């Protein structure tokens, strides 16, 4: 236990350094944007008299020397203040926090779905390698892997919403229905189906292919032969010996995907008008709302760092050869 704590401590310290670097790059990006930020803000609000601009400069500390500004920015980020969206007239953190639950709901379910289905299909394909079910799974995986996300999304909307009318085409819940309790849950779930499928299919394909090839590799290893020589039932050989070893590379990839739980769903959120962080980022990009973009950038970076640490921890739990030292 002490080992894990010290491992965590070290990793957190390392991650803080990386985060600092990211914040510095962020700051440089803001400064690298052409023009005087005060002029830009003033231009956006339609007023341009010198006094107002001077006021803005003072308000945003733009009149201070660069190192001072850098210090202000770093301490702000450190205290959770990601800046202020002038366009939306709200603090960036509030904007992000408001959208986070919707995004996490979507990406979290898609994550579980893709990982579960991917492992299942990959295992099935590997066990039945060369038979028709393997061919079918590999083909589906290849299709899901090669088809653009948004196209799948659009086609699903056409089929299930427009043609069949089974599922709502966009949004997080039925607008103005004021549903509560179980009805609300069913409503949100219905809205979730297509975005989750669209987002999950791609990763499902990745996991299925990864699992399949990994199993095919592990299955010929010596210790699997040992397990058979012990006279174990086939099921136990596959689950305890083959799958457990084959799942290691899948974990690596799952860790990477987990890092994109916030930032990775821009396309899908746009296609399905899902009110999440991805949409927020997309809108901010169109409106040149740099403060919001950079705020999302910082939050996403933190997610990646956190999930890297979690992945390494999971690894040490599953594979005793990797030590948390």
């Amino acid at each position, binding site marked *: 236990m002490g080992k894990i704590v010290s491992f965590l401590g*070290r990793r957190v310290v*390392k991650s803080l350094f990386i985060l600092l670097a990211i914040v510095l790059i962020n700051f440089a990006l803001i400064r690298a944007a052409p023009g005087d930020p005060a002029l830009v803000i003033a231009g956006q609000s339609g007023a341009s008299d010198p006094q107002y601009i001077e006021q803005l400069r003072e308000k945003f500390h733009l009149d201070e020397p660069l190192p001072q500004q850098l210090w202000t920015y770093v301490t702000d980020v450190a205290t959770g203040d990601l800046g202020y969206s002038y366009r939306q007239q709200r603090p960036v953190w509030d904007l992000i926090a408001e959208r986070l639950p919707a995004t996490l709901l979507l990406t979290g379910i898609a994550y579980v779905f893709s990982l579960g289905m991917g492992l299942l299909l990959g295992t099935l394909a590997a066990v039945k390698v060369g038979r028709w079910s393997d061919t079918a799974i590999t083909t589906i995986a290849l299709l899901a892997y090669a088809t653009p996300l948004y196209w799948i999304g659009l086609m699903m909307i056409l089929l299930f919403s427009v043609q069949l009318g089974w599922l709502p085409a966009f949004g997080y819940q039925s607008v103005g229905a004021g549903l509560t309790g179980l009805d609300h849950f069913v409503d949100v779930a219905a809205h979730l189906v297509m975005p989750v499928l669209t987002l999950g299919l791609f990763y499902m394909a990745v996991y299925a292919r990864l699992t399949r090839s990994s199993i095919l590799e592990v299955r010929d*290893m*010596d*210790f699997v*032969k*040992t*397990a*058979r*020589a*012990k*006279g*174990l*039932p086939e099921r*136990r050989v596959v689950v*305890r*010996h083959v799958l*457990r*070893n084959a799942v290691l590379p899948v974990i690596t990839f799952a860790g990477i995907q987990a890092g994109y739980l916030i930032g990775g769903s821009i396309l899908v959120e746009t296609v399905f008008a899902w009110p999440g962080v991805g949409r927020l980022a997309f809108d901010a990009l169109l409106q040149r709302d740099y403060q919001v973009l950079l705020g999302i950038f910082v939050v996403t970076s933190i997610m990646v760092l956190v999930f890297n640490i979690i992945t390494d921890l999971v690894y040490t739990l*599953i*594979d*005793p*050869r990797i030590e948390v030292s």
Partner: protein
Amino acid sequence: MSETDNVVLDVRGLTISLPEGAERAHAVEDVNFTIAENELLCIVGESGSGKSMTAHAIMGLLPAPHVKVADGEAILNGRDVFTRSEAEQRAMRGGDVGMIFQEPMTALNPLMRVGEQIDEALRAHADMDAARRRERVLELLAAVGLPDPESLRRSYPFRLSGGQRQRVMIAMALALEPRLLIADEPTTALDVTTQKQILELIQRMQRELGMAVMFITHDFGVVAEIADRVAVMQEGRCVEIGTADEVLNRPQHPYTRELIAAVPHYIEHRDAFNREGEPLLDAQNVRKVFSLGGGFLRRGRELVAADDVSLTIHPGETVGIVGESGSGKSTLGRCLLGLHRADGGQIVFDGTDLNRLGRRAFHPFRQRIQMVFQDPYASLNPRYKVGRIVAQGPLAFGTPRSEAYARARELLELVGLDASAAERFPHEFSGGQRQRISIARALALDPELLVADEPVSALDVSVQTQVLDLLDDIRHRLGLAMMFITHDLRVAAQVSDTIAVMQTGRIVEVGTSKEVFSNPQHPYTQELLAAIPGQNWEIPEDLRHLRAQRARTPRGADA
């Protein structure tokens, strides 16, 4: 063994078919043998002889569906194994028959605790509760001579040495006291001292349980050490079977005779080597330390691979470096070649300290010191034709193309291959032939010193002998100095003038081959020599002559 013995396994007319398009139609053809209680049958043969296939067939572990038993029966406990249902076969595996494999490093599941893996076998076959099984696991671990069974039970395999893992494998195979134990080259991957212990363990367990043991090996030393009866296999057929005494001392079949003649042994008639003049290579106090697992914020563990190693090699001398795995012998070789930079000491080659040279200054010496690697399958670029592989060195040193290629053809002939081999790719050659190509490649630069790192340990005995003879022949003809790194004392004795014995990074004993063999001084050397299997067995006199004759005319061999 007399006729009245209780026969445990009776194999009759076993034939295993290979998929279409394979090298031959049958992996194993019409093989017959029996093994009785308390009897140890050694099945000897070279790679591809079908000895492993036979074992796997009996276990029902052939790689389905391509390879299958086409004919014959294997009667165990009165019933044919091959006609049993899948469930019955499963009950037999691990229950009536235990099996251990060659590679202890990979034969255990790396993610499961040792105790759990043994427990699995018990759970699959015996009706015991958890407490009873746990007790049995501890009992087994103690029985195979592992220290501290309680903590070992909870260890993961990666914490254990190769020898310990093989003991765990044996404990697992014997968990249910099988009537038959199949051991597929169980000591081949182990150091000689560990091999001795494992062989003793297998014999002891056999006595205690009264098992029949089918022991697969390629090593006649091991056969002489443990076998009651011996079956010799060649290309899927059993060419000779008999008692150990018959087969070892009065072999009848030409193939058996050839194999026994090829067993490496100390050759008495070697002329003593006279050191003349200055040494070509003079290594003084060489030290090499590896740092393991270091990272961004901390220092790693230090591993001393070579410590205070001093050694000379004179022109024309062959120095054998002998040691077990991890003794630092390969590291030393790589330091001499400049592939590792030594952390201390001098490596003086023909008056220049190589260890002080930078990359550029080292360049001319690369031509003068060449290396032959262990694995002939991995050391040749599969995408280059053999001619290019051999010519590459000279080309890099500025030899004109046509000249380099002409020389490559000459060299291929020198190492006993056809000049036309230059136009072919490495995968078209056998292991022994590839090692000949490796040697030709090393010779292409006219080196003065050849470092050969386990050049024959990946080869079958008969091929091994041919390659050793080739090296011996070449170094006499070209006056090469050679550093010959090996784990096998018998091989070292056969080719070396001088032998240096290494243990944990230090040279513990240096002497002429004869001295080291007949009168070892250091306890570790004595231990190594004592561990060589089959010491009480003398290769029959007539076969010794056959071997000596061969050594004089090694050319034109078809390895």
